[in-house]
């Protein structure tokens, strides 16, 4: 293990999240970062890389493969222990909430591991937030399309201007205590049925 920068392996099937994490680690001065996205022969690759820290996302079934490293084996260079020891319940909570787990080779000092894990947790959380925003943007776009089509139907059937069609949608939504998107969707459904 180098005294300057521990060797870190990221096991994650999501290339974007891994890239976000890798970038963060490099910015923080951790230069020895390797990303494994292929789960085939995972353990053999890890043994070959001989890392000091392994970070793996919790949705990855291959996590159980890593548990094997705790076992006495001829192939293991040195025993491996999970960083989150019993005194560190807060770290376990935070990492599980973020969806990441860390395995640390014995001998790496805890104070050197903490910044790695903290960074990992914050990047995982940032990724989840991004994902969430992306999902919301997508559904907002979908809703916009639905409203536009509903307006078109109203304009055609009732001879309204675009603005009048929108006002009608909005006032109906307010009266029925529903979202404009829902009213627009029911107009599309009704017009499909009445075709």
């Amino acid at each position: 293990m180098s005294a300057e920068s521990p060797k870190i392996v990221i096991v994650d099937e999501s290339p974007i999240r891994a890239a976000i994490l890798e970038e963060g680690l490099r910015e923080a001065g951790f230069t020895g970062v390797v990303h494994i996205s292929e789960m085939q022969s995972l353990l053999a690759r890890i043994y070959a890389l001989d890392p000091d820290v392994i970070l793996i996302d919790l949705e990855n079934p291959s996590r159980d493969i890593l548990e094997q490293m705790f076992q006495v084996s001829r192939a293991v260079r040195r025993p491996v222990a999970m960083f989150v020891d019993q005194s560190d319940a807060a770290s376990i909570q935070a990492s599980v909430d973020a969806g990441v787990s860390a395995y640390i080779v014995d001998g790496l000092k805890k104070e050197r591991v903490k910044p790695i894990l903290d960074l990992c947790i914050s990047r995982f959380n940032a990724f989840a937030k991004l994902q969430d925003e992306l999902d919301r943007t997508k559904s907002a776009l979908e809703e916009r399309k639905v409203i536009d089509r509903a307006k078109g139907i109203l304009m055609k059937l009732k001879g309204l201007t675009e603005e009048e069609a929108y006002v009608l949608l909005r006032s109906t939504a307010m009266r029925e205590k529903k979202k404009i998107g829902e009213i627009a969707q029911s107009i599309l459904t009704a017009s499909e049925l009445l075709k």
Partner: protein
Amino acid sequence: MMTPLHIGFIPLVDAAALIVAVDKGFTAAEGLDVALVREVSWSNVRDKLNIGHLDAAHLLAPVAIASSLGLGHVKVQIAAPFNLGINGNAITVSKTLHAAIMDEIEGDRFDPMATAQALARVVAKRASRGAEPLTFAMTFPFSTHNYQLRFWMAAGGVDPDEDVRLVVLPPPYMVDSLASGHVDAFCVGAPWNSIAVDRGVGHILHFVSDILAHAAEKVLAVRQVWAEKNPEILASLIRATARAAEYTEQPQNRAEVARILAQPERLGVEADIIRRTLDGKLKISPDGTTRESSRYLLVGRDQAARPDPVQAAWLYAQMARWGQTAISAEALKAAMAVFRADLYDAALKRRDTGTVPAASLGPFAGPDFNPADVNGYLASFPIGRRPSAP
């Protein structure tokens, strides 16, 4: 007022009692509002249970013991007041390995001693021509699958740490790995053995009930401190699960139970494959040969649901045999204390059960297991990784 509970499970047929308890409304009838949480790894189930993200979980029986003893991970005292399954695993081998074993076998192909000795000859021949050792996959270091594979092959003279490679593989990857030749055999629970046979890539060589007549497989696990804080809730959960286990075992309910388990958010595999496991009637070869056993998987039948501390002691003895821990009288006692027959009896108000002896382990090789003399028991096995006595 319903009590909300989060319960974790791995999509396997032996989660049946828990899934049926929730989906048939037995937990709701006990005033429990259960959210079943499907997990992808035993490590996740263990960690989320340990930190309280889950109130209870479908858990490998050996993991409940390892957590309580602090083996391989954080020490968290676990209570197992209900056995979700006895047996239920099988050993599946590739077509090539199956042919090699059948070439070498002397005796009944369902006799595990005959297959283990044949395996030893296959292994020796491979070694003599300098071939790569065979690779056997199992699900977790602290799993019955690991111990059943080891127990079987060691009886035939194969050292599982020296003569073959024994690796952990998540169950969903097993069939593909067998097909691609990355592994030569695996030991796993249902439905994965049947899927391998259906895809024509493997043969079921043994039901694990060939190796041990009765082996505790999965337990309903809670944290000890949680059990102490919530005795009424736990008793309600035990009752609902017991009712579901009984329901699952009724032959007339099996089609419905298979459908419930087959749902995408539960196991997400075909009901027909699940049904075979519940019936204990499995296709064992791609040519369509079937084999039947009344002991293939027990969910609540024959007292299967009542935790038996002798089972915990046997699992602890396997951990010691294979070098996962050193033997101590104190740890043995702690391991046995994880299996809480007392909580089971109290919840179901059964006073008679304690007087009926639990079904014995019935190992196919070696002496009968005696928890009072684990050292003597282990000394009778020539192959093992026990640290030498001080």
